[in-house]
């Protein structure tokens, strides 16, 4: 049981990294007032780009950077469409997801059977060798790949950036009330571009992590909707990085649980009353295919609960989210 739990936690932490990257990026983008529904597409190009680069050069760090760059490139399109041309953020985002999916399916065909040596497992520098010894959680928290540690480090960094720096204050202002920010001398366009591009970079990193560290292979559509879950996570997190971490862990756990459930035998002893009814239900609930829906069901549940509990203002949504900004009204 202990071994199972430790293994489960380890898997959960590793599975959560994707969500951390993607959700943090989306938080930055939305705090700036721009919804990015292209996360899934940006993750895919990041994954393929990172994988291909690593396969060709053998350098996974280079692959990781290329993945981020590709995500940023796609985000540049989104930024141009939404900020400069003031088009619908929803349409642009979905278009980029379709584009990313299509591009990576097409170009990725050649890379499907390849294998690479991606990021190796490592212990956290300096302190890791001691902390790893902690029972149950030690391995999970302190022995991972480099991107996992980077993602964790990014949580306090993004928090500090948003809430303890001038740039962060301007980001928040621009997402709440761009007209006010403009009259205060803040460059609204520049700040929104920055937010969207950062969001793309983080999404690219999320994808690159998937193909270089989490599973070290490329498969068509390997993000499997995690980008969409990340968008929902941002709402669950109420646009705060530290809460996004909690959400990421929850979804990481669900992801990990699904893979490991085959090892658990949850049936009741046949002699117990109602065993005849309960056992088939349990078997159904533990069926791998059914379990694979749990992250998505959880997403729906999380969204419903969060939105029902709060009205829009209490939720903490940036007030100017989805609204393009232009100075002169004529």
């Amino acid at each position, binding site marked *: 049981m202990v071994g199972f739990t430790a293994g489960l936690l380890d898997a959960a932490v590793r599975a959560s990294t994707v969500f951390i990257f993607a959700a943090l990026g989306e938080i930055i983008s939305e705090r700036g007032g721009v919804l990015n529904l292209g996360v899934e597409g940006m993750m895919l190009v990041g994954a393929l780009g990172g994988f291909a680069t690593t396969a060709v050069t053998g350098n996974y760090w280079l692959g990781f950077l290329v993945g981020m760059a590709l995500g940023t490139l796609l985000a540049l399109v989104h930024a141009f469409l939404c900020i400069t041309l003031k088009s619908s953020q929803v349409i642009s985002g979905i278009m980029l997801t379709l584009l990313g999916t299509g591009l990576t399916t097409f170009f990725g065909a050649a890379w499907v059977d390849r294998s690479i040596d991606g990021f190796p497992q490592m212990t956290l520098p300096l302190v890791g060798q001691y902390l790893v010894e902690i029972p149950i959680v030690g391995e999970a928290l302190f022995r991972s790949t480099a991107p996992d540690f980077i993602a964790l480090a990014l949580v306090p960094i993004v928090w500090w950036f948003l809430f*303890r720096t001038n*740039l962060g*204050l301007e980001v928040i202002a621009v997402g*709440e009330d761009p007209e006010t920010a*403009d009259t205060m*001398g803040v460059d609204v366009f520049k700040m929104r571009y920055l937010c969207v591009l950062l969001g793309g970079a983080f999404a690219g990193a999320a994808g690159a992590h998937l193909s270089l560290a989490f599973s070290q292979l490329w498969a068509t559509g390997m993000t499997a909707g995690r980008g969409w879950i990340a968008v929902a996570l941002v709402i669950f997190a109420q646009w705060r990085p530290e809460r996004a971490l909690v959400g990421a862990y929850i979804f990481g756990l669900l992801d990990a649980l699904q893979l490991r459930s085959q090892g658990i035998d949850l049936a009741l002893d046949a002699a117990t009353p109602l065993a005849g009814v309960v056992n088939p239900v349990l078997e159904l609930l533990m069926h791998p295919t059914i379990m694979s829906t749990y992250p998505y069901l959880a997403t729906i549940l999380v969204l419903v609960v969060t939105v029902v509990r709060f009205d829009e203002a209490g939720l903490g949504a940036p007030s100017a989210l989805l609204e393009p900004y232009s100075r002169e009204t004529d």
Partner: protein
Amino acid sequence: MDEDAFLRMSGVRKTFPGVVANDDVDFSVRRGEIHGLLGENGAGKSTLMKILYGLYDADGGSVHLGDRRLNLDSPQDAIDSGIGMVHQHFKLIPRLTVAENVVLGEREPARAFRRSGSDSADSWLPDAVRDSRVARALAERFSIGLDASATEIEALADDYGFDVDVHAPVRELDVGERQRVEILKALYRDVDVLVLDEPTAVLTPTEADRLFETLRALADRGIAIIFITHKLSEVTAITDRVTVLREGENVGTVETSTVDQADLARMMVGREVLFSLDRERVELGDPVLDATGLRADDDRGIEALSGIDLSVREGEIVGIAGVSGNGQRELAEALAGVRSPTAGSLSVAGTDLTDESTRTFVDAGVSFVPEDRHEYGCAEELSVMRNATLKAFRDGRFDDGPFLDYDELTRYAESIVDEFDVRGVHDVREVPAGDLSGGNLQKLVLGRELARDPDLLVAHQPTRGVDVGAIEFLREALLDQREDGTGVVLISEDLDELFDLSDRLLVIYEGEFVHETTPEAADRERVGMRMTGGAPAAGDEAVADASASGAAMTDGGETGGESDAEAVDTAGTEGGDAR
């Protein structure tokens, strides 16, 4: 041009599609003066100031401050030049604190990085680091000097007698406090010129007085103050000089002490303005509205109307006075069929309309001018034409087989725009209603409602926030409609307006009518007092006729008695509101 002038705007020109907002305008202000900028809605005052503040690009002309010609491409340029602006709709972010709002855009680095040599000279960082440009650039972006700034802001606030908690989120502040934060924003940046855009629109009379004191103090310190307003009383109260704009042109600059309100009104509108209207005697006809025992809840589910009895006859204007928040909105909406009453009955021209849909009310000849012309009076994104025909398009005469005859609709809209003097519309099909200035939008809304020749018109604050010329027009329109036989319910906070227009006058307080009188018989002091719940002296009440229920009057008296002490206190300040 004025030699003493500190700020000089010369030959400023700005056009929008179809309208010249500023037509070769010269405008100058001296140091230490409070200079009023007066004009109707749409005269070009806001446009001129937005050019000054870098929000708009002028098509022609120049701006000089002292000897320097200014390049105003963005608000940052204006801020850098020492120009500050307090906007009519506050530019504050409710979620952020006062300090954060004030400091936004200044990029103050953390205390440790403050430039060596200033009073925060002790820092653990070596001078070389602090003075290095790279380090400063990084610190300005990636740190924030909120605590040091907060102290400075508090000192400033003390200096001017503002009482404000710099760490409070702005959403917790009331309107007067928020305006002081707006002023602090300008003071923090050490402005030489301060522009205030209709600052008293949201203030109570007491708060407005405090503001005037503050402005005088600022002017005494040498700041040039520009005070945009369309209220004549304010111009005479506080300005040293005043410039009047009319239809994009500068009509003249005068010393305030040499003119009176009538002169200013004439300059603003270009002709004599009637300040009080002649109400002709009209034969009253059949009842168009009969409401008994009306009760209704507000949006939060709390009872806002507690038993209203009201009847209105053809050719009668019934004025309802009251301080905002005593059930007026719910009453207006219930009478117009927009809000379902929780009890009671309502009939229009003999037909029982209790609990019917809004559409039924509209078809029964009820017209409604709501309080908020932007939110509820029009569809801002839609064209003037569509707004003008919103309630009329189902009329048979606009049918073209199964389609709508858009040409006919356009003609209808144009006739409303013509008849009701709606300005700023070069093409009814193209101009969105939201682009119209306050007075013109209000004329459009009233025009739409009156063009249907209603039996009953419910008008809620029809002239609020509207300039003098348009106010005169709107009130004349209401009187004309009354002569045509429409029954009008006029809900307003403006006692002058109610006294001018009403045949009967009711006072609403906490959801009930507590007083009934006529403009001829009324005592304004008593009306003002009843508006704030003050108790009448025994036997002083004007005789109520059948339309105000006896129960309501007694209740009003009882509540009045309980809250006597408070009423006496509030009557002092609120009496000002009643004016």
